[in-house]
């Protein structure tokens, strides 16, 4: 330490009116502290946080040449910022400051005045000892790219993109399917209001397409993510469509002419066929088909065909298209990768896959949809209208063998099905449930409405579905067997059709996206939010937010609200335009680092990377949150948190125990 840097400490003991003094003999404390090494001045004053109090500090720094300041008053959670600002105003680095909390920890909680004074002395002395080791710290400001990446083009991603773009930011929306729309595009009606999903959805899809602020990447996937908050560099892979988006007019001739017609339609849940060149559904956005390379005669089987190319008037078909890679500068990322429905095949007692009239809820959505395989008529495979239908709740949910959690939406959509079945077919509907969960605005009312419509609610989880018949008259029907737990009877109900209300699980590929982004997932595979209650949209990685079901099952209103919220978070970040890095972050001394990577393992924020060239760990200052896990994990004492260095903490300990 050079002579001009020789510590000259000023210590200020606050009376806090009548709050600290007279319980603590502040004058006695000041007298005691004055005698300590390096203490240039020790004063007591009525209100240190008042303007005259702060001015006293500023003047002393200037006139006495203080280079360290200690204030003994209230909790630093109250006034640390105030005093740091005062120190900064006087031209000193604000981190040359330490506070001793002699109000909350001493005067207010100690009965005996003498004991209180002793404790205060010791605490102020410890603050003096600590501030001796303080170092000047800087925060850094980094500019933020004014652009948002949204991953996933379902209702969550679309809404997040629209909200962000409406705020004036550039949005890139990446969707791996040929069209945006996600699951909601497959629905017919939505609970509890029964609005037509297409009517509220299609305009939104068009808005997304036409919004000048949104660049749409469909049939594309996020390939690589580098950088940090405000400065992500994202590589998007555009899979070959084999159709030139700029030339295609969406006339649909290619699809009519394609000779490969017997491919199960993913969009219709395998209940109808599509061609090899296809758009998943008529209202697809963009209205540009893709060629399914596995099934196409030219691409998949090396045969002569090219019928689509022959009939395309704008010459948009391009069999030689290759994947394209686009690099984007991104300020904030919104993850909206959604869910997929649980496949009920492994619940073998329900016979899904064995009995043609056992449908999953997604299949039923299509069966019931005007754009679906039956044009919205609920028909069995034999073309007949079902006379009696059973809807089975909690298939794969609340089941420790499958998904232990409640999937939240199944009770409500089951009752929506019941209503639609009653309305469309007049069929008798039996709902088998464990508990009806209808916590939402107008949800319980909807339950009551469906009850009134004559749906039979049986409280009991279905034990099995069988095609064994008791009565020859029921030949060809399925029998649903369950205990009706409220009457303690085993009921065997012959039905024509069964709908399995399957639960939700994270979408296929969320693990990969999680890895790309550095996001952690919970035991069920959903992305972890930063805080379950207070930061439900943020993630441990600064600048990355969550929207919709990728964070956990939720219904459409919650999804949209969350998407708007996530966009709000992103907008707040972009609007400010800069991020200030924290001063109290980790630093790894490259001279001490042994390259063991313990710190990398311990870091929750993926903020430490390994420099292969120098064989040392390096902290990314923009990502580090200063939790100090690395410091405690480092076996070589190379990692440490600034402002919580070994010297500072141990100096404080030593002084407290004097």
């Amino acid at each position, binding site marked *: 330490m050079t002579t001009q840097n020789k510590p000259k400490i000023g210590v200020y003991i606050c009376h806090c009116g009548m709050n600290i003094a007279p319980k603590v003999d502040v004058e006695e404390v000041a007298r005691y502290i004055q005698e300590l090494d390096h203490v240039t001045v020790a004063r007591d004053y009525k209100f240190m946080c008042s303007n005259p109090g702060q001015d006293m500090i500023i003047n002393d720094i200037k006139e006495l040449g203080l280079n360290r300041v200690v204030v003994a008053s209230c909790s630093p959670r109250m006034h640390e910022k105030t005093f740091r600002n005062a120190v900064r105003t006087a031209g000193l680095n604000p981190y040359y400051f330490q506070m001793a909390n002699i109000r909350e920890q001493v005067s207010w909680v100690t009965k005996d005045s003498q004991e209180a004074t002793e404790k205060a002395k010791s605490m102020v002395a410890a603050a003096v000892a600590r501030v001796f080791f303080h170092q000047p710290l800087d925060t850094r400001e980094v500019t933020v790219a004014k652009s948002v990446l949204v991953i996933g083009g379902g209702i969550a991603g679309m809404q997040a993109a629209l909200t962000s773009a409406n705020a004036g930011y550039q949005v890139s929306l990446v969707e791996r399917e040929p069209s945006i729309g996600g699951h909601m595009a497959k629905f017919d009606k939505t609970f509890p209001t029964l609005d037509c999903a297409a009517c509220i959805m299609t305009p939104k899809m068009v808005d997304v397409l036409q919004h000048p602020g949104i660049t749409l990447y469909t049939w594309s996937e996020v390939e690589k993510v580098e950088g940090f908050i405000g400065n992500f560099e994202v590589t998007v892979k555009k899979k070959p469509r084999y159709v030139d988006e700029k030339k295609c007019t969406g006339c649909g001739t290619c699809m009519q002419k394609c000779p490969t017609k017997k491919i199960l339609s993913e969009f219709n849940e395998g209940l109808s066929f599509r061609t090899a060149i296809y758009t998943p559904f008529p209202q697809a956005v963009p209205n540009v088909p893709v060629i399914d390379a596995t099934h196409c005669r030219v691409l998949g089987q090396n045969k002569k065909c090219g019928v689509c190319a022959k009939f395309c008037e704008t010459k948009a078909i391009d069999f030689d298209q290759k994947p394209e890679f686009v690099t984007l500068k991104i300020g904030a990322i919104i993850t909206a990768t959604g869910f997929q429905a649980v496949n009920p095949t492994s619940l073998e007692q329900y016979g899904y896959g064995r009995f043609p009239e056992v449908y999953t809820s997604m299949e039923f959505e299509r069966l019931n949809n005007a754009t679906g395989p039956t044009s919205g008529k609920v028909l069995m495979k034999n073309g007949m209208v079902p006379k009696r239908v059973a809807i089975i709740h909690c298939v794969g949910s609340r089941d420790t063998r499958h998904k232990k959690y409640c999937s939240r939406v199944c009770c409500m959509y089951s009752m929506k099905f019941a209503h639609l079945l009653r309305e469309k077919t007049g069929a008798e509907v039996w709902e088998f449930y464990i508990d009806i969960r209808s916590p939402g605005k107008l949800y319980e009312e909807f339950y009551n409405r469906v009850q009134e419509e004559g749906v039979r609610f049986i409280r009991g989880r*279905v*034990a*099995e579905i069988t095609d064994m018949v008791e009565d020859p008259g029921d030949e060809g029907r399925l029998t649903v067997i369950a*205990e009706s737990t409220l009457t303690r009877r085993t009921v065997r109900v012959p039905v024509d059709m069964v709908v399995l209300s399957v639960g939700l699980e994270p979408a296929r590929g969320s693990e990969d996206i999680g890895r790309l982004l550095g996001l952690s997932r919970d035991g069920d595979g959903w992305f972890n939010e930063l805080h379950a209650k207070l930061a439900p949209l943020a993630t441990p990685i600064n600048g990355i937010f969550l929207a919709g079901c990728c964070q956990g099952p939720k219904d459409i209103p919650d999804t949209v609200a969350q998407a708007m919220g996530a966009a709000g978070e992103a907008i707040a970040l972009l609007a400010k335009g800069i991020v200030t890095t924290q001063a109290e972050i980790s630093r790894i001394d490259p001279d001490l680092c042994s390259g063991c990577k313990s710190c990398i393992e311990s870091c929750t924020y993926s903020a430490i990377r390994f420099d292969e060239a120098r064989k040392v760990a390096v902290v990314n200052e923009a990502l580090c949150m200063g939790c100090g896990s690395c410091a405690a994990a480092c076996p070589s004492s190379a990692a440490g948190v600034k402002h919580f260095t070994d010297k500072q903490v141990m100096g404080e300990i030593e002084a407290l125990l004097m």
Partner: protein
Amino acid sequence: MSQNDTNPFSAIAHLESIKQCIQCGTCSGSCPLADLMDHAPRELFALLREGAFDEVLHSNTPWFCVSCYACMVRCPREIPVTDLMYAFKEVITKQGTAPKNLKMPDMYQAFSHNIKETGKVTESQVMARYGMKHPLDALKNIPLAIKMQMRGRLELKAQKVADPKSITRLFELTEIPKDKP
């Protein structure tokens, strides 16, 4: 102290698992003989949770468990329902609270007795012993027995292990002293 102040079932392994029961009815819905039971299996769990131990001690439910394990592989909380039915029977037998007019406990006794005496089970002997308590039942089986014998399928002579005493000894060594009030 009356015996239902403390849980006579408390020593059962996995008894903790019944705390997880959500009363969904999968066990009873899967049970081939649920209609004969005075309580659904799940109800026994609920009764135990309520402390109604006497109800469970006198229930016929465990005695109608056929050990088909359908409930056990389907229970969404993975409660070992069948294993618990075995354990309940063990406690009930020890406490001597099996329903008096119930056929199954007598059948079990006849079966167990036959093993204890001979080491093996000879169906005709089990039926004969059981028939002493339920003569009507035994009589009902006679036509079938005759048919069986005609096809060489009725063994009247007792099957035995070489040293039946060793099995009797096994029974003695594994005897659990009965709780006496």
